[in-house]
């Protein structure tokens, strides 16, 4: 499957007009110099020759070097530098979405039709409807530009001397006990993570609310109530646990949406992650970066879905026994 996808991505990129020769030479290029450059880079070869060359190198772990995002750097290195950034951002975003979405969804269901319910349903609608980049600009305007409380972009302040260990800036700060660096990296994460969290938050909230409503109407809840069980026990053991099943699926699926959202969020916040590299790669026709990054994104997506399927076993005992 990865092979087929790699061929598709490869062919599609080369079907786009323009190309790296044009991007590299800019308005100083001439037809002659562009042709010479294309030849030098092997871009004048038939596409299947290019593909097999690419495949041959890829099998040895060489995905080529960037032409536009970080020109000259190995694409694998760029990915390894940037992947932790995107993971940090996505993990915090999904944690925020879960931490806010599930309790709110649960409360909204408990007080169905009340003011709180109506208000939070409305808020979640905005979360779905407002494009993430707009929200990102808005957050920046309020919290960075107007109030000056949070940094408006980047992963860390430029003049902090931080030691890099894993590439996860917050983790690095903790590991090396450079607390100011860890804190600074965390503060830089906040705005983009909140912006990015709105996508999964809205969905998680609504699914939780719907699931809890369903379960509240189940016979076993009524039985538990009539048995005279404590309210807290019913809620924890019978309602929440059963309602979590669809929510877990949703969270898994939302990780795919996070990847897409990260492209915009990272661009807006100048956050040097995978998403920003993808956006820049398109602008600058950076074939090697696009080829590898799109492939890896696809593989990650497939893996996450597999993990979601496996995690059913944890929440749904029926699957374990089958």
């Amino acid at each position, binding site marked *: 499957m990865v092979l087929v996808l790699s061929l598709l991505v490869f062919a599609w990129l080369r079907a786009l007009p*323009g*190309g*790296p*020769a*044009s*991007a*590299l*030479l*800019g*308005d*100083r*290029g*001439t*037809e*002659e*110099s*562009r042709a*010479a*450059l294309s030849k*030098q*880079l*092997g871009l004048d070869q038939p596409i299947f020759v290019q593909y097999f060359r690419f495949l041959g190198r890829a099998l040895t772990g*060489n995905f*080529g*070097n*960037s*032409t536009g995002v970080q*020109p*000259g750097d190995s694409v694998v290195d*760029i990915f390894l530098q940037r992947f*932790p*950034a995107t993971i940090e951002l996505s993990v915090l975003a999904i944690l925020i979405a879960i931490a*806010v979405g599930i309790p*709110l969804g649960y409360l909204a269901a408990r007080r169905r039709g009340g003011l709180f319910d109506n*208000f*939070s349903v409305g808020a979640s609608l905005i979360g779905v409807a407002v494009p993430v980049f707009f929200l990102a600009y808005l957050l920046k*305007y309020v*919290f960075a*530009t107007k109030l*000056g*409380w949070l*940094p*408006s*972009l*980047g*992963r860390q*302040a*430029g*003049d902090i001397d931080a030691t*890099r260990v894993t590439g996860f*800036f917050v983790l690095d700060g903790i590991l090396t006990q450079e*607390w100011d660096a860890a*804190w600074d990296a965390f*503060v830089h994460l906040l705005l983009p993570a*909140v912006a990015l969290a709105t996508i999964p938050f809205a969905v998680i909230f609504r699914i939780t609310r719907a699931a809890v409503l369903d379960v509240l109407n189940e016979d076993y809840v009524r039985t538990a109530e009539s048995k005279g069980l404590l309210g807290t026990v019913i809620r924890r053991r019978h309602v929440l646990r059963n309602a979590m099943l669809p929510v877990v699926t949703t969270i898994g699926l939302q990780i795919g949406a996070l990847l897409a959202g990260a492209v915009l969020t990272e661009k807006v916040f*100048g956050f040097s992650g995978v998403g920003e590299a993808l956006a820049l790669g398109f*602008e600058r*026709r950076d*074939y*090697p970066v696009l080829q590898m990054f799109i492939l890896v994104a696809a593989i990650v997506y497939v893996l996450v879905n597999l993990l979601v399927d496996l995690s059913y076993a944890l929440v749904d005992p029926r699957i374990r026994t089958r």
Partner: protein
Amino acid sequence: MVHSRTAQRRWTAAIGLTGAAALALSACAQSERGDESGAGKQGGTFTFGAAGAPKLFDPLFATDGETFRVARQMFDGLTTFKPGTAEPAPSLAESWESTPDGLTWTFKLRQGVKFHDGTAFDAQAVCANFDRWYNLKGAAQSDAVSQYYVDNFGGFSDGAKPSLYKSCSAKDANTAEVVLTSSTSKFPDILGLPSFSMQSPAALKQYDADNVQAQGDSFVFPAYANEHPTGTGPFKFGKYDKANGTVELVRNDDYWGEKTKLDKLVFRIIPDETARKQALQSGDIDGFDFPNAADWESLKSAGFNVQVRPAFNILYFGINQKNNPALRDLKVRQALAHAINREQLVKSQLPEGAEVATQFIPKTVGGFADDVTKYPYDLNKAKQLLAEANASNLTLKFYWPSEVTRPYMPNPKDIYGAIAADLQQAGITIETVTKPWNGGYLTDVDQGIPDVFLLGWTGDTGSADNWIGTFFGNPENRFNTGAATWGNDLAAQLKTADAEPDRTKRYGLYEDLNRKIMSEYLPAIPVSHSPPALVVKNNVKGIVPSPLTDEKFGPVSIG
């Protein structure tokens, strides 16, 4: 920093939960940032927002503005440009003179200068640099790698193409003699370009500087270009933190000139334009380049210092005579010139300070002629000329680029719209084609597919050859002048003018050429010169806006 405020966090199940958390946390962030701003005149960090990652740090292989900007702060050339102008001025060379034929140049060097690695700068180092450029091999010769060398010096020592450079010899420790193969107006001005900076021969050798490889569909550069750039400039290379998107330079305490007051100079890479503006407003950066002209007023009123550069570029309305026979008629091209209301275009579409271009060089370039044929807006004249040429039902394939802004063309779509409307007024039918700048526009223009198109140029030096020589000096160009009866003649005259060593005579030749280009040839229509700007915080002192975007940050202080 994490102390005290946590108590204020209220984990209510209210809607503002995330907001409240951000609020509490950020109170600390603010106090942290407050610490930086108290910097006085001496010391501090100057953070500049860059639109892209520098490609590398060896200016010889640099081709784009972001790479040049970083290199300018670390390197000096034999010459430089007088701040705020395009005139050559002494730098590592204190003085120079040439023989009357313009072929042999003697440079008297500044004494006691050291490279960042502690080795001495002397005449041998100068010759080592010239020889390095001339002897590049393999992938390093590619246009995409050593573009500025190829443009300015031509070929390499392998002799495949003629080279401007012949030899260099050290007459004594402080005197270098450079011999050229022909006289050219751009020498020695080009030695002030960052590409031709003086680099430490020892470091070049140690870190394998010339070893550029074409690998797969890209280029791989050696350790020197990535991590060990070694010049003589006011800043030394610190580090390039790729994961964080920052480049850090530090003060060179042994600088030969006036030492910088700054401790550090940081370039933060922010590809998104709106994000750059917001970063300035929120104080994350101290300045950035090319603010959108539409934002100048609001930035000024918000208390920022918008520094406008002298206009040193040109936007032209390109005409390609290849596919549309009507365009081979001078009257048709003149009709187009009369049909476009350039005054109005400049007023409504371009930043304040922009001017209508009467010829293909700006006023500040030697060889500018005041009395060229001008083509004022005149719809009737345009229609009449079209009728005389039997081209009243002219159809033009008009290309404009998307996904790009250039200093000479801040808003391609609006500029296209204004010109297209003018042409339609004159009865011309327009077939619009738009393509992304890197997505087919440039390639199509250079393959001669459009009839008319928008393009421009930003000057590298104050020599006319850098402008009209670039456009028309090679008869095979994007206007296809080689196919016109006068195209080869024009190219030959440009070469003659460029080779004239006597400045006064040379300017005269260029003035004549500019007159001819605007009356007899009119290969394209010059539209405008637009002043680009850069913007910094009000407490940033010491930047002199340069027509060449050659701003040096050494004299900058914050406070």
